[in-house]
């Protein structure tokens, strides 16, 4: 099977990537400013809602219900979309999904497509796959455009260019658009408007993701801010939507929960500027060809894991990134995946599905387990518990490390009092290695321990020996 493009080929493990990122003071300054702003705004948007906890509990329960009934809900969605003139495709993995999109582009003679920001298409590496097939994908979300024009990688789920400040964005726009522009956000937004306008008016095929799909009506929902989403969802002749199979809600009524949870958690707004809802094809309004691709790409493997599967409740708000002390310091690119931050640390390894992959296996350690992510999560994903669960899996996959051999030896020694005392006497000799009461370097296999921490020097006499002499 091909490797899952959810992680970037050749990415260093998290600790190595983090070391490089931490040395970048500009990056840390940009992130501190941006996450600080959004944290304060989110807190006040949530404080307005006396029933916030009740909404979170409902959001959690609805998504758990979805995960337990995918077998029924997915065919139900398929039937509803088909009945309204849409075509539904199923894709087991990234490769299969990309091939379907490319085929549809070719059938429509499209050499260019406009794209609405979508995590699912970023996860499957769609742009790269299309480019190889001779189709150029134009990102139309402002932050995605900044990343694309800067030949950069995304570093945040909601705002992929969060690591760039206004003057860096100005520099990228001037260089790639051949224009002169100030670093005022309003002017930068205007530059993006002018740059993309003709593309919106003339491109015949659009590709989007989906925030939600309503199983009983077949309605697809996309939340956005700029209007680039509306452009893509309304003007082209053909619309191709790629969505993960977990994006469902059972009924139209269930949306009332998520339309309250998502905007406040994500952009800290009471409601995002634009939300589009469409069901199949509407004659005379919008694209007359609609294709929906239902994507697995590792999700069903995660579904098997009773602890890990809760990551599939995620609605991609990115609140957990904005409150994470690790993310704030290392930035998103250190995670080597389109899903960074706390949710990325639990979702990415599950989608990769191989704990022998050193990079993926390093992600569950990208956390201090402080729990801030769980507190803000609108669907109550217990990220710390999944992190520790995945750490255990990473350790098991690693097999017998020098540390685990040492632990097994210790267990043998502790089981017998005589053995234990002999070992203590022997251990007391280690004092000879100590300086200022600390041992900084032990011979192998002890070196595996002291390479990352010091050991206090053992006392000359053990407690047992002292007790025997004085009280025995």
């Amino acid at each position: 099977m091909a490797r899952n493009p959810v992680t970037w080929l050749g990415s260093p493990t998290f600790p190595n990537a983090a070391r490089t990122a931490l040395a970048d003071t500009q990056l840390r300054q940009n992130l501190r400013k941006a996450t600080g702003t959004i944290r304060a705004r989110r807190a006040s948007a949530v404080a307005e809602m006396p029933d916030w906890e009740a909404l979170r509990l409902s959001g959690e329960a609805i998504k758990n219900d979805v995960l337990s009934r995918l077998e029924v809900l997915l065919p139900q969605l398929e039937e509803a979309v088909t009945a309204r003139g849409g075509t539904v495709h199923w894709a087991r993995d990234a490769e299969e999904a990309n091939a379907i999109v490319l085929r549809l582009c070719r059938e429509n003679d499209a050499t260019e497509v406009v794209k609405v920001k979508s995590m699912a298409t970023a996860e499957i590496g769609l742009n790269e796959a299309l480019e190889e097939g001779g189709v150029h994908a134009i990102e139309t979300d402002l932050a995605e455009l900044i990343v694309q024009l800067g030949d950069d990688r995304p570093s945040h789920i909601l705002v992929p260019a969060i690591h760039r400040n206004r003057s860096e964005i100005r520099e990228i726009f001037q260089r790639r658009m051949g224009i002169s522009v100030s670093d005022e956000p309003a002017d930068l937004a205007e530059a993006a408007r002018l740059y993309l306008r003709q593309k919106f008016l003339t491109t015949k095929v659009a590709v989007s993701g989906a925030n939600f799909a309503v199983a009983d009506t077949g309605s697809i929902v996309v939340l956005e801010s700029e209007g680039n989403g509306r452009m893509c969802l309304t003007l082209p002749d053909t619309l191709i939507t790629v969505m993960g199979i977990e994006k469902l809600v059972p009924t139209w009524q269930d949306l009332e929960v998520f339309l309250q949870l998502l905007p406040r958690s994500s952009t800290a707004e009471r409601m995002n500027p634009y939300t589009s809802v469409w069901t199949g094809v509407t004659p005379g309004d919008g694209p007359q060809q609609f294709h929906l691709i239902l994507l697995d790409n590792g999700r069903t493997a995660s579904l098997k894991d009773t602890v890990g599967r809760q990551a599939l409740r995620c609605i991609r708000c990115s609140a957990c990134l904005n409150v994470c002390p690790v993310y704030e310091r290392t930035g998103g690119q250190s995670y080597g995946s389109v899903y960074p931050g706390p949710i990325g640390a639990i979702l990415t390894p599950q989608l990769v599905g191989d704990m022998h992959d050193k990079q993926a296996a390093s992600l569950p350690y990208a956390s201090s387990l402080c729990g801030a992510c769980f507190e803000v999560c609108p669907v109550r994903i217990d990220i710390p518990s999944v992190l520790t669960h995945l750490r255990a899996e990473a350790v098991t996959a690693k097999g017998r490390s020098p540390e685990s051999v040492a632990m097994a030896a210790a267990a043998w020694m502790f089981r017998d009092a005589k053995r234990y005392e002999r070992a203590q006497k022997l251990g007391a000799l280690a004092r000879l290695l100590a300086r200022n009461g600390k041992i900084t370097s032990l011979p192998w296999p002890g070196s595996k321990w002291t390479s990352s921490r010091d050991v206090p020097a053992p006392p000359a006499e053990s407690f047992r020996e002292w007790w025997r002499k004085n009280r025995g």
Partner: protein
Amino acid sequence: MADARTEILNRIRAAKVAPAGPTPRDYRRTGEGGVELFAERVADYRAIVHAVSDVPAKLRELLVGKRIVAPAGLPADWLVDGVEWLTEPLSTEDLDQADGVLTNCAAAIADTGTIVLDAGAGQGRRALTLLPDYHVCVVRTDQVAASVPEALERLDPLRPLTFISGPSATSDIELNRVEGVHGPRTLEVLIT
């Protein structure tokens, strides 16, 4: 090899996820906010809000001398003199070059300062309210629902819906909201 659909459904079955319990719904389904809260919250998102008793008079004041898209089904007395009204069929270029668009709406939400269009009479297909840079939307007070749940109940999900909360905006530069990107940069809401 099985086809993708069969295989994905088989994988789901094999995961054997236990049924979830009943969904608690202890959140507020109704709200207390009325037209005043709606006006305040629409304005919060830098839309321009007017409470008006005489809609045609206000429209005259706002639109005279402009080229404005008029979807089918608007009340005849809103199509005031002195405005160049553009009616369907309209090409993408026509819409792009119009000065603005006038519509009514399907519902509005007080809690969030949102108007909802459903492509019905007086609103037209979605492109009409997207390409012109200026959108005037008339909201009747009885269309204002207090809460998001109350508004969804009034809407038909089988129609193409657009929820609009203020003019086009972005939070993509340093996570601060800036108004005015691809959608209409000026939104004017008339409450009557």
